């Protein structure tokens, strides 16, 4: 490659228009001798070249990894499963605890209307009788009052009966 081509390729390179092959050509070119003016650029491409040769520094990395994956596999899975179950269990515990406390609070805030007040059944019976008597007394009283309404009813019926008779009499007269 002559210097003109290299200049053109470099221009394309800075504009990110070079293909991978062209970039490899540049690298290959700068591995050889280059004029003084391009020595800085050559260093850049040599730097890339050198960097690509860097390797993991470990005597037997593959063996290390292989032994690690053998140890790691079953253990990791069990932990993960327990972890998942643990999460579900923790969620349930929270829900149960929350409902328990809410129920308690609700009971405190709204005490139930029917509660056991007597422990002795006889006493309870007495009290119930009393209550029922009171209700029946009230009923009787109310019935008396209702009796008065009867008078009105009878009066109404009588008036209606009269008017009916009148119409009948008129009809026979004609």
């Amino acid at each position, binding site marked *: 490659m002559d210097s003109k081509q290299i200049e053109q390729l470099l221009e394309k390179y800075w504009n990110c228009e070079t293909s*991978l092959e062209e970039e490899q050509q540049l690298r290959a070119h700068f591995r050889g001798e280059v004029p003084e003016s391009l020595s800085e650029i050559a260093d850049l491409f040599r730097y890339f070249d050198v960097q690509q040769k860097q390797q993991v520094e470990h005597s037997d990395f593959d063996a290390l*990894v292989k032994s690690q994956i053998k140890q*790691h596999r079953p253990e990791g899975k069990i932990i993960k499963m327990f972890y998942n179950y643990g999460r579900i269990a923790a969620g349930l515990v929270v829900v149960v605890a929350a409902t328990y406390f809410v129920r308690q609070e609700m009971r405190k805030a709204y005490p139930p209307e029917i509660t056991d007040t007597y422990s002795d059944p006889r006493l309870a019976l007495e009290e119930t009788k009393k209550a029922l008597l009171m209700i029946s007394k009230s009923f009787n009283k109310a019935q008396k009052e209702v009796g008065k309404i009867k008078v009105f009813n009878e009066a109404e019926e009588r008036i209606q009966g009269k008017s009916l008779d009148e119409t009948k009499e008129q009809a026979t007269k004609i």
Partner: protein
Amino acid sequence: MKYFVTTCPCHRLAFETMNLETFEIRVLPTKNKLFRFAFRLLGSSEEAKDVVQEVMIKVWNGREQMAEIQNMEAWCMRITKNLSLDRLRSRQRRATDPIEQGMEIKNETLTPHERTENHENMERITEMIAALPEKQRQVIHLRDVEGYSYNEICEILELDMNQVKVSLFRARNAVKEKFLKINAYGL
């Protein structure tokens, strides 16, 4: 890679889930690329090595889900990137700090001849690239050091084509600018 062309039902299993042999063929050989990438991001060879081991274990443990992955290398590179960035964040350290460590490692990989000849310039270039913003550093490493295609870089970095190209353009131009400056001072 015999396992991937066979139609014999007894070899089916090898196609579906990775066994140790396919792991050795497809995953282990990527170790140096993974190491270089992690090293570029973290700036410490010890940590980079840890990350590579972590990636390998992750790929092995998740091999059942990864049976359909075609570009295993790009996938490994992506995991490397994510784990390295996690480490960077947990360290809460700026990635441009460990320039000195970078130089130390680089010297080890140079032959004595190269070391005496280019030492100063190589140092300068390492510094230049280490000073770039994270994304630009990733892209210039993947493209100019490792020679990945733009599509592969998109896959590894989880970026779209435009972002990759813009980052590479900025990275290369930052390097070029610095060269021009050095030359100006040199005169």
